[in-house]
């Protein structure tokens, strides 16, 4: 028996609204199947399931707004376990309704996913376990400071204090928002409807970016990359290809970033609970701005393992679906780094804001012809200005510089990518 819960599709998501179930009771689901469509601040998202089995019970009803962590369905078999799940759901809903935010390691789904694999046994003192239960804290989310990283009382209390503080802040923020809304209502001319969906996405971006600038000590590095060889290779390569198979420049950037991350893994992952947590894979978040305003950052999974063509395919697919609002939950939550490419908007360079809890953001400006001195010769070359914004808690300038240098190397030898 497995409980299917409302996943967190980002650190700032508190709840989602079930639009429709894509499965029925009795259906058999496999890992990766889309089980439901949920409306979030980021638009309508297709939610995948990470378990295998028969859907025994659909608990939530379409239209319901469900706090993150709410048990929405039960997958598996057995009548008794069903009742258990429902009672647990009630408990958890209460906690969520209280406003205690559920912390996730990178994303809500990871925890569900790991239930497939034998779950990591958490070392903890009996007291820590008891307190965690009393405080409604999942002990597997607490970093232990005891022997062999055992979780102790002090660790649980630390997390509890942090949550209380967050809750306090969230409340303050909500109060502030209400205040602002009041003013906005007064200010907005009568009859002018604010696009609610757009508004909530703006709100989510605001929250994430505020948190980033509040918490993350950014450092910025910048490098000019001679893009001549890459450009030429792309032109030659595309000549040989049919129109629909042609490659776009960002593909090279994504692949080169993924490749450089295999050399400098310190930039790939998360900063959670005051600790660096390496990303298990390289999932590259690619910022896509929407015509309707706002942006989404779906992830290109395992970009280091994918071929250029596979990445091209993913990017096409993602940008199509991003614009129709049919992204999948996993794509929105598990990026381990973000790329933002504003070159096509004409800017020279980007000083990015890291998407928490990620560790870095790579920004690309436009490729522009510039005077370029090399080997004592002055020439005109297409130059790409690349920037790295990175979290100074996790890495130092040395790693950042290494990364940019590797990125440069890969872009000089794109044919090897």
């Amino acid at each position: 028996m497995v409980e299917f819960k409302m996943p967190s599709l980002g650190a700032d998501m508190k709840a989602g609204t079930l639009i429709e179930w894509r499965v029925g009771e009795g259906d058999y689901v496999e890992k990766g199947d889309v089980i439901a469509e949920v409306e979030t601040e980021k638009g309508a998202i297709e939610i995948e399931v990470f378990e295998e089995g028969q859907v025994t019970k659909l608990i939530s009803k379409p239209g319901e707004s469900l706090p993150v962590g709410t048990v929405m369905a039960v997958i598996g078999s057995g009548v008794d376990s069903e009742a258990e799940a429902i009672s647990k759901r009630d408990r958890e809903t209460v906690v969520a309704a209280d406003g205690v935010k559920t912390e996730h390691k990178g994303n809500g789904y990871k925890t569900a996913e790991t239930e497939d694999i034998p779950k990591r046994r958490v070392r903890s003192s009996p007291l820590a376990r008891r307190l965690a239960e009393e405080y409604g804290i999942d002990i597997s989310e607490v970093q232990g400071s005891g022997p062999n990283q055992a979780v102790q009382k002090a660790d649980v209390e630390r997390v509890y204090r942090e949550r209380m503080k967050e809750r306090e802040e969230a409340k303050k923020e909500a109060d502030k928002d209400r205040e602002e809304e009041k003013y906005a209502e007064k200010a907005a001319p009568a009859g002018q409807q604010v696009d609610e969906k757009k508004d909530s996405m703006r709100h989510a971006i605001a929250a994430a970016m505020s948190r980033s600038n509040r918490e993350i000590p950014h450092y910025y590095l910048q490098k000019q990359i001679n893009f001549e060889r890459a450009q030429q290779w792309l032109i030659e390569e595309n000549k040989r290809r049919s129109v629909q198979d042609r490659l776009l420049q960002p593909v090279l950037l994504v692949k080169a970033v993924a490749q450089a991350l295999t050399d400098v893994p310190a930039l790939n992952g998360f900063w959670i609970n005051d600790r660096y947590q390496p990303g298990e894979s390289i999932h590259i978040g690619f910022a896509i701005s929407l015509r309707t305003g706002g942006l989404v950052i779906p992830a290109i999974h395992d970009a280091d393992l994918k071929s250029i063509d596979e990445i091209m395919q993913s990017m096409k697919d993602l940008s199509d679906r991003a614009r129709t609002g049919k992204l999948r939950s996993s794509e929105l939550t598990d990026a381990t780094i973000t790329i933002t490419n504003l070159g096509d908007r004409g800017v020279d360079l980007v000083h990015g804001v890291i998407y928490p809890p990620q560790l870095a953001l790579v920004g690309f400006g436009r490729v522009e012809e510039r005077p370029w001195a090399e080997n004592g010769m002055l020439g005109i070359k297409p130059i790409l200005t690349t920037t790295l914004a990175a979290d100074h808690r996790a890495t130092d300038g040395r790693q950042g510089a290494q990364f940019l240098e590797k990125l440069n190397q890969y872009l000089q030898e794109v044919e090897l990518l």
Partner: protein
Amino acid sequence: MEAKVKTTSTTYRGAVRQAIRQALLDDERVFIMGEDVGMYGGCFAVTKGLIDEFGPDRVRDTPLSESSFVGAGIGAALTGMRPIVEIMTVNFSMLALDQILNTAATLLHMSGGQFNVPLVIRTTSGGGKQLAAQHSHALEGWYAHIPGIKVLSPATMEDAYGMLKPALEDPDPVFIFENSLLYNSTGELLSHPESVDIDKAKIRREGRDITIITYSISLLKSLEAAKELAKEGIEVEVIDLRTLRPLDDDTYLQSIAKTHRALIVDEGWRSGSISSEIATRIMENAFYELDWPVQRICREEVPIPYAKHLEEAALPQTKQIIEKVKEMVNAHG
């Protein structure tokens, strides 16, 4: 205004002697017997002078035969006397074990409740005096294994004095262990001392960070360690068990509910000991209070060596306690 409590300075030995003397004065059924308790004044000079005051009938020298004089003590107790039998050291109590275990501890049961044995046995225990492997035992825990007897281990002046009376008043056999290294320790005793409650352990020092559960001479070492640790801001709660059978579980369990860490310091060997018993009871009753595995400091599991430095290494020491406490408390860096 509260009247000032009058105390006198005394030694542990003096406190025990004072208690025996008071018992002899208070109750004519009380007498003491053992090897050299009379003419010689006791191997550790505890009974010195008593024979002059009370005469050889009430302060009786016995032959070197533990089995026979403990047996005689049981007989006397059964026939209405209140004997205090002194066995010179716990090492020699082995010779009387049959009397203690098979007779004193079981007679009430074997007689269907007809014959209780109001016997008090006093003996010395412990190592640390370079008396080598045969004469350095600390077997309090062994005796605490036996249903039917009570096992007391006074470590302070007030207990050295105050435990004898309730022991004599107890209807069943009571075994009192005096650590011989304590005899010369000095302290204050009330000018009119009182008996103590032998059913309760006692918190000898209050603290919030960790509970040390101990008894007898290890109490002194633990208190010394606690004093040192306090200088570094570690507040140790030190519990003197005082009575090893029956154990007062409530006192140490309540303390652990406060500190969440428990260290047992026991001069006995580790395996199958009173320390293992206490650790088990903590698991059984306070598991969800624990923030750290229960730890023990016991004597090394070897025959106690004669050489001074080796003997010191084999017995629990203050430094060891300090280090262990730091390890257990400083986990959060």
